[in-house]
C-alpha cells in the first residue's frame, strides 16, 4: 500500500512538473502575474510529492518489503539499517529517484531564495526547471520504476546490497555528486531564461553566481569522496582511474570551474557574456551526458549500472531536446550581443580567458578520450580500441601545468591592464619556490625527481602569491589584525579554493612519484620491509560481521623494532550475495599512508598480500575538501544578501510589471 502511495506520488509530481513548466510560462507570455506567481507554490508541491515518493521507497527498504523488485535486488534482512537506507540509491532506479528529488530540492531552493528576482524572471527560471523535471520523472516512470512489484511470487529474502557499496563513503558520495550534477541545472535555467528574454545583461551572472558556486562545491565534494572511497574500498590503492564514469563527473567539474571564473568576470566587468552563457549550457549538458554514459551502457565501466537499451534511447532523446534546443536558442538569440568594456592582453580578464580556454580544452581532451573507443569503432567498421591512463596523463598534465602558471599570476593581476613589471618580477617567487621544494625533495625524498620539484614548486608559487596578495591587502590597512578578518567572503573563498588546488596537486604528484608497493606471498611469521617500515604478518583469524564472515590478518608495523601500529586487513565473504570482498586496512597520517590489502589464499596458510607506502596521499582529498569549502564560503558574501534586500524593495515597486528591467538591480 505504502509502495503504491509512493508510485502515485511520483505520478502526481509529474502532473505538478507539467503545471510548473506550463502555467508560469503562459503567465509570462500573457503577462498575467497571477499565473507567474504560481511558480512558487508549484515548486513547493513538486518537491513535497517527490519527497513523499522517496520516503515511501525508504519505508519499503526499512520494512524489508521484498515484494518490491528493487528492494529485493538491493537489500537483505540482515543488512545494517544505515546500509538499508543507502541501498535506496545503491542501484539505477533508486539513485535516479534521488537525482529527481534533488532536482526538486534545487527548484524549491530557487523559488525560496530568488524572491528578489523580478516576477517575470523567476517564473521563467522555475518553468525551465519544471520542464527538466518532467523529463526526469518520465524517465523514472517509463523505464526505471523503483516501485515495480515482484508479485505474485516474491522472494523470502533480498539479494543484498553490492558489498562494495556497503560503506560510509557510498552513503554520502552519490547524494553529493547528484547535488553537483543537478545543481548545474540552476545556472543553466538562468542562462536559458535570460536568452528567452533576449536581454543578455550582466545581471543574470550575479544571480547565477552563488548557485553555480554551491553546485560546483557539491560536485567537488562528490568527486573527492568518490576518489577516497575507491582508494580504501577497491583494494588496489588507486585513487583515480580515468574510468568512463569518473570522467563523466570530471567533465562537468572542469566546465563548472571555467564557468565560475567566467561568471565572475561577466559580473564584474560585463565581458564574455555570450561565452559565459555557452559555458552554463555546457556545464549542465555534461551532467546529462554523464548520466547517459553511466546509465546507457554505451561505455563499459567499473561502475556499470544495470542497463537496457530503452533507457539509453530515452536519455539520448532527452539530450537532443534539451541540449540541442538550448544550443539552437543560443545561436538565435546571442547574435548582436556586445560587450561593454575592452581590456588589455595583460589584464586579469585575459588571465581568466586563458583559464577558460585551458579548462575547455582539457574537457575536450577528456571527452575525446572517453568517447574515442566509440568513434574509432564507428569509423573503422567495428574495430575496437580502448583508451587508458597514458593518453589522459599525456594530454591532461601539460594543460594543467599551463593552467597552474595562469593561476599563480591571475589572482594578483589587475582588471583591464596589469603593469608588465608585475609579470617580470614573478621570477622571484618562482625561484624561491623551486629552491624550497628542491631542497625538501633533495633532503627528504627517497630519490630526486625533477618532475616533483617542478610541479610542487608551481603549487608553492601559487600559494606564495596568494599569501603576498593577502598580506598586502592587510598591510594597507591601519588596523592590521581586524583587517585579517574583514576581507569579503568571496575573497576568502578564492583563497581557500586556490590553496586547495595547490594542496591537491602536491598530493597527486608526490604520491604518484614516491609510492612504494610490494605484492608478495606471506604466511604467519613472515616479515617484509618497505620504505623503512617492517610489516610482520602475525596471524590469520576468522571474524564475523552482521552479514558476512571474514578472514582477518593481523599485521604489525614496526620501525627499528618499535611497534607503530597493528593493521587488520580482511577478506570478507558476504553470505546472502555469496560475494568476496577485500577490505584493506590503512594507517593514515598527514605525510604518508601505510596500506595493506589481502589478496587470495595461496595454499597452506599463506596469502597474497599487497603492501603500499603512499606519501602525501591524504593531501589529495584534503585539497579537494578545501576547494569545496572555498566554493561554499563565497555564498556567505555580504554582497548577495545586500543585493537580495535591494531587489526586494525594487520588486515591491515594480511588482506585476513584466517590463521591470533587471538591469536596474
Amino acid at each position, binding site marked *: 500500500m505504502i509502495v503504491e502511495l509512493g508510485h502515485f506520488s511520483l505520478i502526481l509530481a509529474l502532473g505538478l512538473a507539467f503545471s510548473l513548466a506550463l502555467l508560469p510560462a503562459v503567465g509570462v507570455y500573457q503577462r498575467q502575474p497571477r499565473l507567474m506567481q504560481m511558480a512558487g507554490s508549484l515548486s513547493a508541491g513538486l518537491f513535497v510529492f517527490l519527497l513523499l515518493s522517496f520516503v515511501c521507497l525508504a519505508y519499503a527498504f526499512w520494512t524489508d518489503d521484498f515484494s518490491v523488485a528493487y528492494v529485493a535486488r538491493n537489500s537483505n534482512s540482515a543488512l545494517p539499517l544505515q546500509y538499508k537506507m543507502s541501498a535506496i540509491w545503491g542501484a539505477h532506479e533508486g539513485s535516479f529517484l534521488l537525482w529527481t528529488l534533488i532536482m526538486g530540492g534545487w527548484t524549491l531552493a530557487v523559488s525560496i531564495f530568488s524572491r528578489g528576482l523580478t516576477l517575470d524572471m523567476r517564473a521563467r527560471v522555475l518553468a525551465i526547471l519544471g520542464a527538466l523535471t518532467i523529463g526526469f520523472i518520465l524517465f523514472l516512470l517509463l523505464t526505471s520504476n523503483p516501485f515495480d512489484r515482484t508479485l505474485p511470487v516474491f522472494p523470502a529474502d533480498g539479494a543484498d546490497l553490492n558489498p562494495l557499496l556497503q560503506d560510509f563513503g557510498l552513503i554520502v558520495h552519490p547524494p553529493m555528486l547528484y547535488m553537483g550534477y543537478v545543481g548545474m541545472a540552476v545556472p543553466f535555467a538562468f542562462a536559458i531564461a535570460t536568452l528567452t528574454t*533576449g536581454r543578455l545583461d550582466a545581471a543574470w551572472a550575479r544571480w547565477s553566481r552563488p548557485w553555480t558556486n554551491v553546485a560546483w562545491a557539491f560536485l567537488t565534494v562528490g568527486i573527492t569522496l568518490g576518489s577516497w572511497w575507491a582508494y580504501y574500498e577497491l583494494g588496489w590503492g588507486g585513487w583515480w582511474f580515468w574510468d568512463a564514469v569518473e570522467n563523466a563527473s570530471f567533465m562537468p567539474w572542469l566546465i563548472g570551474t571555467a564557468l565560475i571564473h567566467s561568471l565572475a568576470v561577466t559580473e564584474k566587468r560585463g565581458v564574455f557574456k555570450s561565452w559565459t552563457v555557452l559555458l552554463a549550457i555546457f556545464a549542465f549538458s555534461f551532467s546529462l551526458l554523464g548520466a547517459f554514459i553511466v546509465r546507457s551502457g554505451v561505455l563499459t565501466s567499473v561502475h556499470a549500472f544495470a542497463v537496457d537499451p530503452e533507457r539509453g534511447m530515452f536519455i539520448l532523446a532527452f539530450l537532443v531536446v534539451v541540449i*540541442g534546443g538550448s544550443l539552437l536558442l543560443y545561436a538565435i538569440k546571442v547574435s548582436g550581443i556586445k560587450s561593454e568594456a575592452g581590456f588589455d592582453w595583460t589584464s586579469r580578464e585575459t588571465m581568466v580567458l586563458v583559464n577558460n580556454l585551458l579548462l575547455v580544452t582539457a574537457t575536450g581532451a577528456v571527452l575525446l578520450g572517453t568517447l574515442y573507443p566509440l568513434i574509432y569503432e564507428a569509423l573503422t567498421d567495428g574495430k575496437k580500441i580502448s583508451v587508458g591512463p597514458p593518453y589522459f596523463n599525456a594530454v591532461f598534465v601539460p594543460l594543467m601545468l599551463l593552467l597552474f602558471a595562469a593561476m599563480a599570476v591571475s589572482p594578483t593581476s589587475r582588471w583591464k591592464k596589469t603593469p608588465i613589471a608585475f609579470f617580470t618580477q614573478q621570477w622571484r617567487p618562482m625561484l624561491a619556490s623551486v629552491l624550497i621544494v628542491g631542497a625538501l625533495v633533495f633532503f627528504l625524498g627517497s630519490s630526486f625527481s625533477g618532475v616533483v620539484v617542478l610541479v610542487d614548486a608551481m603549487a608553492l608559487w601559487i600559494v606564495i602569491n596568494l599569501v603576498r596578495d593577502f598580506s598586502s591587502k592587510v598591510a594597507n590597512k591601519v588596523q592590521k589584525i581586524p583587517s585579517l578578518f574583514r576581507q569579503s567572503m568571496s575573497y576568502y573563498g578564492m583563497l581557500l579554493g586556490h590553496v586547495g588546488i595547490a594542496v591537491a596537486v602536491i598530493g597527486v604528484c608526490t604520491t604518484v612519484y614516491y609510492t612504494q608497493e610490494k605484492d608478495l606471498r606471506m604466511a604467519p611469521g613472515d616479515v617484509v620491509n618497505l620504505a623503512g617500515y617492517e610489516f610482520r604478518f602475525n596471524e590469520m583469524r576468522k571474524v564475523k560481521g552482521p552479514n558476512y564472515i571474514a578472514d582477518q590478518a593481523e599485521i604489525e608495523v614496526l620501525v627499528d623494532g618499535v611497534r607503530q601500529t597493528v593493521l587488520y586487513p580482511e577478506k570478507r565473504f558476504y553470505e546472502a550475495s555469496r560475494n568476496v570482498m577485500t577490505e584493506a586496512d590503512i594507517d593514515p597520517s598527514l605525510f604518508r599512508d601505510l596500506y595493506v590489502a589481502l589478496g587470495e589464499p595461496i595454499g597452506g596458510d599463506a596469502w597474497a598480500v599487497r603492501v603500499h607506502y603512499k606519501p602525501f596521499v591524504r593531501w589529495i582529498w584534503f585539497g579537494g575538501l578545501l576547494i569545496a569549502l572555498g566554493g561554499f564560503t563565497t555564498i556567505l558574501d555580504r554582497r548577495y544578501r545586500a543585493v537580495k534586500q535591494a531587489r526586494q524593495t525594487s520588486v515591491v515597486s515594480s511588482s506585476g510589471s513584466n517590463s521591470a528591467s533587471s538591469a536596474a538591480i
Partner: protein
Amino acid sequence: MSDADHDVRTDSPDRSVTTNDSVNKSLLIPLAVFVGLVMILAVGFNLEDPHFLPSELIDQQFPEFSLNELNAPDRIVTHKDIKGQVALVNVWATWCPNCLIEHPELMRISREEGLPLYGINYNDESVKARQWLVRHNNPFQFNIVDDQGKLGIDLGVYGAPETFVLDANGVIRYRHVGPVTRRVWEETLRPVVDLLLSQASQSSTVMEG
C-alpha cells in the same frame, strides 16, 4: 572558444553590424559539434557488431589468469582449468543487452552440442551476475569473475559479448564478436569447432598409436 573571441575583439566591425535578424554562423558551431556528438553516441549505442574481430591472440595460448569463480567465491579458477577439450569461452555481463539475446543459443549449445562452455563475467557486479544466471539459466561449466576487467584487457575485449573458440591445448583458434545466434553457430562457429574436434581426435589417435 570562438565566441570568447567575439567578446575579446569587441571593436571588430563585423560584430557591430550583426543584427538580431541574422544568425551569426559561428554561433552555430556548438550546435554542430553537439549534433556530431549525438551521432557518435547513437551509432555507438546501436552498434550491433556483426564483424569478426581479427585478434592478435589467434593461435596464441589463452592468457594466464587466476580469478574467482562466480558461484563459488572460495574457488580460484585458472587458465589450466579450461584446457583439455575443444571449448567455447564466452565474455558476458548483465549490463549487456546482446548477451541476453544470445543466451538461448548458448543454452542450446551447452545442452545439445556436448561442448564445454566457460563464461567470463566481465566488468560486472557479481550479485547481479548470479541473479542473472538464476533467472536465465546457466549454460557455463563455470564462470570466471573478471570484475576488474583485467582478463578482458589481456584478451583485447572491448565490449561484450565475445566468444572465443579454444582447441584442446588451450590455444585460441577463433574469435567472434557480437551475439552468437543460431546462424552464427551454423555458419561460422560450428565449422571451426568441427575442424578442431577432428584434429584433436587425429592427434590423440596418433599419440595412442
